[in-house]
C-alpha cells in the first residue's frame, strides 16, 4: 500500500493512501496520524476550556491556538444565520418561502 502526505504552503493538509502527494512510509503515516489526532484533541480541549494554552506543547501552541480561533470564528458566522443554510438554499432555488 502506498502512503502519502499532502503539504500546502509548508503546512500538512492531509495524509492518505493511494495516489498522489509526497510518498511516505507506513511508519511515518502512523506517526502523522497520531500527531493529527493529538492536535485535534488539544483543539477540542482548549476550545472547551478544559485546558489552557500552557498545557499544549510549545512547538504546537501557535497552531492549536490558531485552529481554536478559526473554530470560534466559524461558529460565530453560523450563529449569525437567521435560518439554516439548507433552508436558505431551498428558498433561493424556489422552494418554501
Amino acid at each position, binding site marked *: 500500500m502506498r502512503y502519502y502526505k499532502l503539504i500546502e504552503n509548508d503546512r500538512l493538509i492531509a495524509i492518505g493512501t493511494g495516489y*498522489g502527494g509526497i510518498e511516505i512510509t507506513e511508519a511515518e503515516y502512523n506517526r502523522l496520524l497520531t500527531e493529527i489526532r493529538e492536535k485535534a484533541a488539544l483543539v477540542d480541549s482548549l476550545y472547551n476550556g478544559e485546558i489552557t494554552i500552557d498545557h499544549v506543547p510549545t512547538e504546537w501552541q501557535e497552531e492549536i491556538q490558531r485552529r481554536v480561533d478559526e473554530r470560534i470564528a466559524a461558529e460565530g458566522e453560523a450563529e449569525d444565520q437567521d435560518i439554516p443554510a439548507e433552508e436558505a438554499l431551498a428558498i433561493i432555488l424556489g422552494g418554501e418561502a
Partner: protein
Amino acid sequence: MSVQTQIDRISGAVSAALTALTEKGVTVPAGTKVDDLAALISGIEAGGGSGDGGGLEITSGIVVPSSTTSGKFTFPHGLGRVPTFFAFFPKTDIDKELVYKQSAALGFFHYNGVNISVFTDYDSSSSKGYSKSIYMTDTNLDSYTSNRLIRTVDTTTAMFNGANWVTYIFAGNEYIWFAG
C-alpha cells in the same frame, strides 16, 4: 522421474505461464524464454483492465484531513478521467461529541450524473446534532455547482466542500473513497 521428464514438465509450465500472460493482455513476443517471465509479469496492469474495456478500473484510498473543516479540501483520486462513480464516507462512525453546531458530513455518492450527499443536522431544540439529511441533485461530478459535498477539480483530484450546508469533515478521521 527422468531428466527429460523434468525438462518437459518445466517447459510445459513456462508455456502455460506465457499463455496466461497473453490472456491478461500482455504482449508476449515470439521466442520469449523463461528468463523474460519476470519482466512480462511486471507488465500486467493492476485491476486486470483489457483493451476492449472489459476490466473495471477503480482507484481507492483513505484520506485523513489534518484540520477540521467545512471549506474546500482537495485530495487526489488519480483515476485519470472524471469518474462515473464516486463514493466518500467516514471509515468509522463520527464521534457525536465532535459534531459542531451545524453538521457532520456522513457520505457522498455519485453515479452517472446523480449525487447523494448525506450529513447530520443540528437540532437546536435539543442542542445536539445527529438527525440525518439526504440531499439529491443531478449534476455531473465536474460541475461547478455547490449543492453537493464532492466535485472533481480535474482528472486526478477531488474536492470536498461543505460550505453550502456548513458541514464538516473532522481532523484525524479516516475517510474512505472510491472512484471508477
